[in-house]
């Protein structure tokens, strides 16, 4: 893949931990890659597997789900639901030829502004190595051939 490839990441952040951490990163002026765009949900438990699939289908090279640490969920156990869905979805994505690294679930508490930077930067670098989800124009064209 050409160097100029910049991965696009859709990030589903829970309102109480990870989204606040992202805000904290902001107030702390912590700098990180601009490749991730945040969709706010109240809880990682709201993240429907369909959302992740939609993001991949619409051109995301990676999807990041951020929730509260185990035991710290603002809604007690929503993050465990997210974890279970994530583990099964991963296996499905593998069958679909999508690498594990493209979908990450991370626990980031409201206090961990720096972790937002670490996780996003790390993911961006990994995805740069992996290259785009849609590997070639040919592959892109294929699904259009009948449209």
């Amino acid at each position, binding site marked *: 893949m050409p160097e100029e490839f910049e991965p*696009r990441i*859709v990030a589903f952040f829970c309102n*109480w*931990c990870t*989204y*606040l951490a*992202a*805000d904290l*990163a*902001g*107030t702390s*002026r*912590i*700098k*990180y890659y*601009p490749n991730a*765009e*945040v*969709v*706010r*949900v*109240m*809880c990682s*438990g*709201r*993240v*429907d*597997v*369909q*959302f992740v699939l*939609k*993001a991949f289908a*619409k*051109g*995301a090279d990676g999807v990041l789900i951020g929730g509260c640490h185990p*035991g*710290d969920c*603002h*809604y*007690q*156990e*929503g993050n465990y*639901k997210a974890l279970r*869905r994530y583990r099964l979805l991963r296996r499905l994505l593998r069958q679909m030829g999508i690498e594990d690294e493209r979908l990450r679930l991370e626990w980031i*508490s*409201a*206090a*961990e502004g720096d972790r937002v*930077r670490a996780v996003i930067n790390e993911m961006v670098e990994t995805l740069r190595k992996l290259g785009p989800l849609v590997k070639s124009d040919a592959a892109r064209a294929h699904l259009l051939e009948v449209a």
Partner: protein
Amino acid sequence: MSEPFGPVRIGVYICHCGTNIAATVDVKALAEYADLLPNVVLSRDYKYMCSDPGQDLIRQDIRDRQLNRVVVASCSPHLHEHTFRTALKVGGLNPFYFHMVNIREQASWVHESRAQATRKAKDLVRAAVQRVAFHQPLERGRVAIQPDVLIVGGGIAGIHAALTLANAGKHVFLVEREATIGGHMAKFDKTFPTLDCAACILTPKMSAVRSHPNITLWTYSEVTKVDGYVGNYKATVLRHPRFIDESLCSGCLECIEACVYKQAKVNDDFNMGLSKRRPIYIPFPQAVPQVPVVDPETCIQFKSGKCKTTCIAACGDRHAINLHMEAKEEQIEVGTVILATGFQTFDARRAPYYGYGKYPNVYTALEVERLVNASGPTAGEVVLRDGRRPKAVGIVHCVGSRDENTNRWCSRVCCMYSLKLAHLVKEHTGAEIFNFYIDMRTPGKGFEEFYQKLLSERVHFIRGRVAEVTDWALDSSEEGNLVIRVEDTLAGFVRRIPVDMVVLATGLEPHADAPEVRRLFNISCASEGFFLERHPKLAPVNTFTDGIFLAGCCQGPKDIPDTVAQAGAAAAEALALIDAGYVETEPNTAHVDEERCCGCKTCISMCPYHAVAFVDEIHKSRVNEVLCKGCGTCVAACPSGAIRQNLFEDDQIFAEIEGVLSNA
């Protein structure tokens, strides 16, 4: 997507936030870009959208340009979502036809490249524009506020908050873990910088608490469970048995005198172990309540069952002593909670190079507070463990503060209390006092003046972090003394100061069990472990959980005036809720489309609040919107999509996802 106002007409507002956003995001370009997006009828950029003129813009455009959807791209929704929703409401539009884009905390402040930050801002605005088109009008629910208040922690913060609320006519449950209220302040002798006696200002408030009709005081008690939501919390309080019935005890304390132990043998925690107490004791003379407590660990009756229980005899026909008393649980319902759980002091053993616990004459500041205290173990005599009066005293600042190896933060109070102790010890002993400091921090009313006063009292100040405290003498002058090794950064060489007493100015840190308490009340901690306020400046006593407030050092180190001020603020916040009588809830709850629910019951087990119930008669699930906290977990779990969540409808989220990516 047309009803109820005809075609969707979106207004987009880009905030400069002065230069906070404008410096990194090309707000003009962003506004022009937004203007071209579908359904957008106008797009403006403005210096401060949150300002009155900014909000007026929105109100006017709603009227003049018939907007029926509004997008504001500015700071975090946690900051101003409410502000702008209100602006819509005032403008005559349902406040939920609004979506906020965070281009400050999550764009301008975190990216350097103007081009990239602007590109990202465009993506986010585009997403919001697509999302908001699917927004529906919603009504806020109202929840009545139960007027009683739970205050956890009976230090000066809890006391002050309790009295404020009680005086305002609200009933307060004040729960304290120790046998008495008073907290750390009760241990102090004088308070800086005014040197007025801590007891003199604290104990009246303590007794006021005891006697206040609106305060239920539960000492020796802990909150073990909290359920519910703002306005309607249910708390369980575990009351440890003190083996003396508060309602029967008159506080004569004869039982203590009567104890079979003639000599007190047990370390007295209140005096930092510098004195002894009996198994039946009262923490300190002015303790509130004035009711002794029996320590089953050391009481012979508990250990052997063979005690003559002279205490019971002494109590006579009051029968206040009941050695069979058992722990009991109290269930209370309150509308608001104030956490004033305070702090713990840094354990000086974690800085072994200062010799605490190794050299008997190395003391912590709190121990010296007791030594100088007239009601302390030595009745105010500052003497070493061997009874000698110290001739030279070294006070080491920043022990467990401003230190990579222990705690990074400045504990804010150590400089000042070190100065206070320097003054008091000198006053009591006339000893030479050496202060070893990194920086002298005196940012408070009368603080700097106090520092100057100390300088004039010829207290020595040596600038430098102390390397170690040792008894290894290099010459006769050091023999039998403790030697403080320090690099005098002003003089520019390493010095060895022989002293016979070392005082460690230990810092403040969160209680070891702060994480459990945080979970109990479903709030967050900041990275250093103190409870996290909703906003460092604009909501310093609020938490992210409505109806739960913070006061005192549980939120971060602070001195007494600040603590009292914050306690007052917390009380005021609680009052505001109580007197409003109700709180408006976020409408982002889940609801079941009963037409389409297939009754598979998947959702039932999803909800930790039992807000989803299965109604057998109709074989469908139903959501209790009052219990629902709006996490949306059941929505994602509903296999046939029959459960929906206001403000987080599938339509809206899918539109947002597609919006973010639609230039991909």
